[in-house]
């Protein structure tokens, strides 16, 4: 089930902003100078008229990184002969051979452990989980080995590994295929957690993740794989990459800030369209990165609009929205004109029945109603 992508009007590319972004790619923390420019510079690229699905974006990113660095290799169930469980690795086995695109037996613990070991030694594995629900079978390797090794070994062992795969709810796949793990992985020091939305996000963030010397958890979304997004010429360049830890302002606005990540960004944008017709100008922030969380962008936006709605697919307790609320209250309390609204999934394992599933995840109307409530416009 796809949904209509809202094509936004884009301004001309800001050269300076682009260069700043590429420089920032190499260092993963913002300088104060960057922080100042970032809010305006990062959000715009010229439209090249080309569209690309997220699937192709991921595929091309993998392809380019594997060709640029012989240490990069892909491992996971069905990634080779089957071309990927979701066809993300289509064509890669043929191009790079079985040494670099490895099909594995069904042992998440096994291939994750092997990936971590290979990374210890200096290779750059990209480990694919068929869904992040199955990463639970390998979570010890991800947390206790990958995330903590650099710290525990005092920098002697670095783990340049990427764990990627679909996260969150798909359509009608039930509880064990639908959990969102953004908050879980987001609580682990030592990991970086990325959540792309558009094709540009997918390309830029995956490339950044593969090049990053730290372990990265890359949470994709199954329903977004088939979605097409416009991509700029810069994004198509093989050296393109996005900085880790920077959110993107997808749509500017003045009345309320809506933060979202992954599929929910699309919902938030749709909600913003609806709100615009009612005279509420919403600013939509695409988080792009859960850890590190771009609290500066969020706070800057809240200080401008004075209202905040956080949107996520996962459950509200200990969720990403909870963290955003806490950080905004800590840093921008006096700028808030209304209590923060959290929109999250129902606090239940995902049901299967279509009607139940629909009410268990946030929908566009939920976001619209929350924004209206927060603007004191609801009845």
């Amino acid at each position, binding site marked *: 089930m796809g949904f209509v992508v809202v094509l936004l009007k884009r301004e001309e590319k800001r050269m300076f902003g682009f260069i700043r972004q590429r420089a920032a790619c190499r*260092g*993963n*923390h*913002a300088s104060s100078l960057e922080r100042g420019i970032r809010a305006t510079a990062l959000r715009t690229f010229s439209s090249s008229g080309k569209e690309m699905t997220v699937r192709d974006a991921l595929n091309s990113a993998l392809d380019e990184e594997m060709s640029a660095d012989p240490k990069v290799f892909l491992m996971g169930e069905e990634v080779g002969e089957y071309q990927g469980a979701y066809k993300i690795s289509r064509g890669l086995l043929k191009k790079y051979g079985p*040494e670099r695109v*490895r099909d*594995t*037996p069904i*042992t998440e*613990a*096994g*291939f*994750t*452990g*092997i*990936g*971590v*070991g*290979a*990374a*210890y*030694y*200096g*290779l750059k*594995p990209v480990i694919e989980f068929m869904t992040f629900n199955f990463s639970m079978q390998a979570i*010890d*390797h991800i947390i*206790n*080995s990958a995330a903590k*090794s*650099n*710290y*525990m*070994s*005092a*920098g*002697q*062992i*670095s783990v340049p590994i990427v764990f990627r795969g679909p996260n969150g709810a798909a359509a009608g796949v039930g509880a064990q295929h639908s959990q969102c793990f953004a908050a879980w992985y987001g609580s682990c*020091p*030592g990991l*970086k957690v990325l959540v792309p939305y558009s094709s540009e996000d997918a390309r830029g963030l995956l490339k950044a993740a593969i090049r*990053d*010397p*730290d372990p990265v958890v890359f949470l994709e979304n199954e329903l977004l794989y088939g979605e097409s997004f416009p991509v700029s010429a810069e994004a198509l360049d093989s050296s393109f990459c996005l900085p880790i*830890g920077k959110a993107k302002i997808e749509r500017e606005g003045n009345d309320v800030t809506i933060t979202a990540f992954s599929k929910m960004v699309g919902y938030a944008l749709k909600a913003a369209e609806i709100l615009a017709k009612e005279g509420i100008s919403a600013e939509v922030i695409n988080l792009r990165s859960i850890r*590190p*969380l771009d*609290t500066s962008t969020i706070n800057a936006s809240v200080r401008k609009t004075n209202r905040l709605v956080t949107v996520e697919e996962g459950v509200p307790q200990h969720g990403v929205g909870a963290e955003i609320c806490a950080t905004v209250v800590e840093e921008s309390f006096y700028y808030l004109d209304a209590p923060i609204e959290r929109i999250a999934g129902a606090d239940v394992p995902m049901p299967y029945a279509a009607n139940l599933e629909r009410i268990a995840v946030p929908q566009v109307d939920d976001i619209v109603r929350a924004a209206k409530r927060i603007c004191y416009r609801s009845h």
Partner: protein
Amino acid sequence: MHLICHYIHEPLYMFSPITHTHTQHKHLVSNLFWKRFFPMSICRLARSRTITRFLKTKICPFEIHERLITPNYSFFHACSSYKTLAGNFTRKPHELWDKTANILAFRRFESARAGEQAEAVSYTDDDEDENQSIDFPGGRVTFTPQIKFISESTDKRVPCYRVLDDDGYPFAGSRSEQVDKETALKMYKSMVTLQIMDHIFYEAQRQGRISFYMTSMGEEAINIATAAALSPDDIILPQYREPGILLWRGFTIEEFANQLFGTKNDAGKGRQMPVHYGSKKHNFVTVSSPIATQLPQAAGIAYSLKMDNKEACAVAFTGDGGTSEGDFHAGLNFAAVMEAPVLFICRNNGWAISTPISDQFRSDGVVVKGQAYGIRSIRIDGNDTLAVYSAIRAAREMVIREQKPILVEALTYRVGHHSTSDDSTKYRPLNEIEYWKTARNPLGRYRKWVQRNGWWTDEEETELRGSIRKQVMNAIQVADKTEKPSLKELFTDVYDRLPLNLHEQEKSLRETIKRHEQDFPADVPL
């Protein structure tokens, strides 16, 4: 006393008429079983390695060639006892079983007719019958109209490779790697150092000077002889009872002390609890507390070494308890499938904290699990320094030459407690611990051999022990007084580069310290 090299032992035992007792019954494997049940592939393998060829040729185990490997069916099939369809053996089988048996014409070996024997097995090559085999995914298998279960256990356990007897005399006919005086002495001195180090650091914990310690007492031979047999390029993934390898590779006593005390001189920057050593320059991956996680990681490292075409292998250790972890299965299975050059060494010391091996698994130890994964394996006497040295040398060479994993089970005994948080006298008898500490001590046995070669004297022994003791005590004194790591090390190495949020946290912490100096602990340098 003679012990024929176990490589010869296996085939003899496989092909001679085998008798074993199962309560009152003697059973022999039927000829029919061998003809019908064996997979074709194993048939073919056996054909090239029959007993006659073995016996005809002179066998030198350390000429590494095919004949070194026995297709070791023996512990699965040769001495198997058979179960009835019903399952458990009964002395007076129900009449129904009799009838069923006749109908199905399967051979019941547990029968009320005492003394019934099946035919002796003599599996020969000409028993192959192409018509009696059938294709399935995975290959061709012969089939049989008899219902035969592979027994869950064999009467005879897999023998272990041993070179020196309890008095340090090599068994007549034993085959082992020649050890020169220098290596032999270095091994002995390292074992002594390890033993003394363990004693004194353990006492230091008891006195409250360090928070935790784990000794390797009783396993010194495994620690040191393995290290001696490997090359410094081989990457070690320890469990936690292998500090001897670091010692051999040049980690100083002072470096050990610094890690235990978590001082600023610790290469690990005081990040890990005691005994969790790690050293990149010694190719020793940091000890990780969750059990057996290092096994699939070793396969990953080995895979990297293979891709780099290095003349080195990954060596992963685990204990008997670690073989119960899921990662053991994942690691071995994967290493076999990927053909990764990993040497898996299992220190079967009989205890996993308080769990004896009878509660850990029901197989014949760990060595038999190797074949289940398609991995060549060997069982060795882990308290015999020369046996460990020879076996690991041979195994390593095979691993690197053939780029395939090998499993070594080293039988030993954990003389010390599991750790300083454990009191093993609570779950095992004192006299058992004493026995293994004295009569079966690996150092004693090896020392006798070394001294008999004229390479060591009692005076040198006393001198060495005295000097090591002084060195260790000194290292403790120094480390105890050394400063702990500074505050900035709290935040570094979480990521490759310090991220913004940690930078801010550190800044905020330092400001708080400045404002509330009296609350800040005195022993944390800024």
